[in-house]
């Protein structure tokens, strides 16, 4: 206890300098935590994916379609429980700035395959009964102030024209990591209208969602589906939802790497600032250390004192930084929900924050400790700081 008191007294001998250092560490840990959360948000889709869902898409690339007739064939593959299908609609609400993902989907299968989209039974039925209706995530509904029964018009970017929808339900995510920004409506609505305006695009889907009976058969099912359509006009690639999401992320890998790099740089910067503080502290106390050495305290005693002081400052800063991360993440996530539908500070980020704080404390103390240990008593006594 006495030791801790001594460390605190030492640390706050220069109130201003220590407060500034603590503030610096707080900012750095806050920034580090936020950047890590951004990386986490990048992978949110992967975290949320289920191992019993497969995605079958055109082998050429996502912009090519698959014929609807594949649905019945896929259903015949042993191990397949349910098949749904979707189109990326890419609708624009008023202005392109108001981005949110919009899908045309086979409603019943979609609701069955995505149990994490929680929808009251009454809203579910209302949605299924009305072909012109749509279901929207809580976050998007809140963003535009949509309520049940509202009529929303989206401008199609891939499917030309203005499309009108009636909001019949607002879903919540079952988990924190569930995307609450999606806009889902009936594939039939889109298809009926395509039959009239662009017949060659009708009866096609962007991808099939395949629900399998258990995760163990997923790999076999995927191979079986792809084999079935080999050498046809539209060959397929079937992968787990996780692999599908990962393939998106691997395309923007460069950005993730940059953010990770930057999060390390911020820690290095604060390490330098902290090391500077400790170096100054030790230089000022050279005389004291010499006296302590004369009294018989060993070099390791001093090492303990310096390291302890460094640790006290770093811990204070880290704790403050972690505490501020939560409100900051909330504000950031709310204002940027179009880029990051899911923005939550994970437990892992907190541990990494703590580890970073500890490393800063250790590195900052190394050089001053080495100086204090090497100190010759006579030189130390002579020094005037």
């Amino acid at each position, binding site marked *: 206890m006495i030791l801790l008191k001594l460390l605190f007294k030492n640390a706050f001998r220069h109130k201003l300098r220590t407060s500034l250092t603590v503030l610096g560490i707080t900012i750095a840990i806050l*920034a580090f935590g936020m950047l890590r959360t951004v990386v986490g948000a990048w992978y949110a889709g992967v975290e949320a994916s289920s191992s019993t869902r497969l995605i079958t898409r055109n082998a050429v690339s996502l*912009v090519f379609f698959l014929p609807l007739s594949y649905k019945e064939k896929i259903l015949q593959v042993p191990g397949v429980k349910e098949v749904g299908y979707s189109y990326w609609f890419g609708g624009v609400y008023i202005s392109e700035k108001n981005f949110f993902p919009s899908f045309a989907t086979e409603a019943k299968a979609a609701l069955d395959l995505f149990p994490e989209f929680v929808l009251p039974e009454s809203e579910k039925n209302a949605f299924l009964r009305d072909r012109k209706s749509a279901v929207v995530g809580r976050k998007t509904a809140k963003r535009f102030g949509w309520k049940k029964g509202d009529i929303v018009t989206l401008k199609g*970017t891939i499917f030309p024209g203005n499309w009108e929808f009636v909001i019949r339900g607002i879903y919540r995510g079952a988990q924190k990591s569930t995307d609450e920004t999606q806009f889902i409506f009936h594939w039939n609505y889109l298809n009926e209208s395509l039959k009239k305006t662009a017949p*060659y695009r009708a009866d096609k889907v962007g991808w099939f969602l395949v629900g399998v009976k258990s995760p163990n058969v997923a790999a076999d099912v995927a191979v079986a589906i792809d084999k079935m359509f080999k050498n046809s006009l539209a060959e397929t690639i079937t992968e787990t939802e996780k692999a599908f999401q990962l393939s998106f992320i691997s395309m923007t*890998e460069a950005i993730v790497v940059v*953010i990770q790099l930057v999060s390390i740089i*911020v820690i290095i*910067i604060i390490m*330098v*600032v902290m090391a500077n503080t400790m170096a100054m502290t030790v230089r000022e106390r050279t005389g004291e250390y010499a006296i302590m050495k004369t009294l018989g305290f060993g070099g390791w005693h001093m090492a303990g004192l310096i390291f302890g002081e460094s640790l006290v400052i770093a811990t204070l800063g880290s704790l403050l930084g972690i505490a501020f991360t939560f409100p900051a993440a909330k504000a950031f996530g709310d204002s940027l929900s179009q880029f990051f539908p899911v923005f939550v500070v994970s437990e892992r980020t907190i541990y990494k924050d703590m580890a970073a704080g500890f490393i800063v404390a250790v590195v900052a103390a190394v050089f001053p400790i080495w100086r204090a240990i090497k100190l010759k008593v006579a030189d130390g006594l002579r020094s005037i700081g």
Partner: protein
Amino acid sequence: MAIPVFYSFRNLWTRKLTTVLTAAGMALVVFVFASVMMLAEGLRKTLIETGSYDNVVVIRKASQSEMQSGVDRTQASIVEAEPEIAIGDAGKPFLSKELVVIINLPKRGSDKPSNITIRGIGEFSLALRPQVKLMEGRMPRSGSSEIIAGESVAKRFRGAGIGEKIRFAMRDWSVVGIFDAGKTGYSSEIWGDVDQLMQAFRRPAYSSVLFKLRDSSEFQKIKERIEGDPRLTLEAKRETKYYEDQSEMMAKFLRILGISLTIIFSLGAMIGAMITMYAAVANRTAEIGTLRALGFQRRNILAAFLIESMLLGLSGGLIGLLFASFMQFITISTVNWQTFSELAFSFTLTSEIVIISLIFSLVMGFVGGVLPAVRASRMNIVEALRAT
């Protein structure tokens, strides 16, 4: 009389460790600041060079990009007949009807698939883009399964080198040429005969029509005519504007990233500078008292410490810029979310960025040093002289 700058310089020199640490912190901040600006500049440069001002892109209304667009043959012919289009070789309109699709191809080495843009080209496609040059081999013959690949595609994707074959759309396509498109977006594309590609991909419609204006000032006229024609559901954009719109989201992302990083990082570095300068003032109390006693004014002291702090900032800035300039060798390739295709751009250093970064580092030094300098200048002479 002012205190010589040399005094400030020598002060920094005496406390080497502290100076180096503080300057290193600032150098890192300037490095990040300059890098992000260089990245944004690189993106801008890529986009500007990709489009030319006199060219007009015609795509389907509200479709945002060529990839989402569709222009059927009848509509394309109507556009072709517009009088504002420049005349090319043999009296044909200087126009090309193109197809743009995206496919997945595995990269060399890692085998990881990435998206790549395939462009079906016509007779004038190359001539309409003076920034694209054939480096090796020859142009694909029309009516054959031949393609040419952009330099960065040839290097990074499997089977895309000259003389090699790529399989897509149920055909083998032989690469007969490599084109160099500088830093433009085209260097991440593969080009082939438009009619062959439309057949292979079973697409009944073109994606876009690109033409050069007879007279640059006639843009408004033809834009109004195309967009007002009831037979057409198209919109016309200048090529430069078209590419700018496409990477709006990426540019916005870089801007937000840059601003937030700079603010956070510079706060850290300024705190570092402040700590150093406060210590410098505290250590030199007696010295300051002596200077005052010798007759130097308060403002001289203030200036001396501010200069010291700004020198610190400047040296950090110079080191940071030195390292940032090495970033120019790095090219970033990522997927543009809006078009879903590969976009490669490199860090670009301009004299403007150099100047802004140096000013930024001076400002950091100034802000970090101002409070300590004020404290130094307001010291009481007698008390300061008495301090040990």
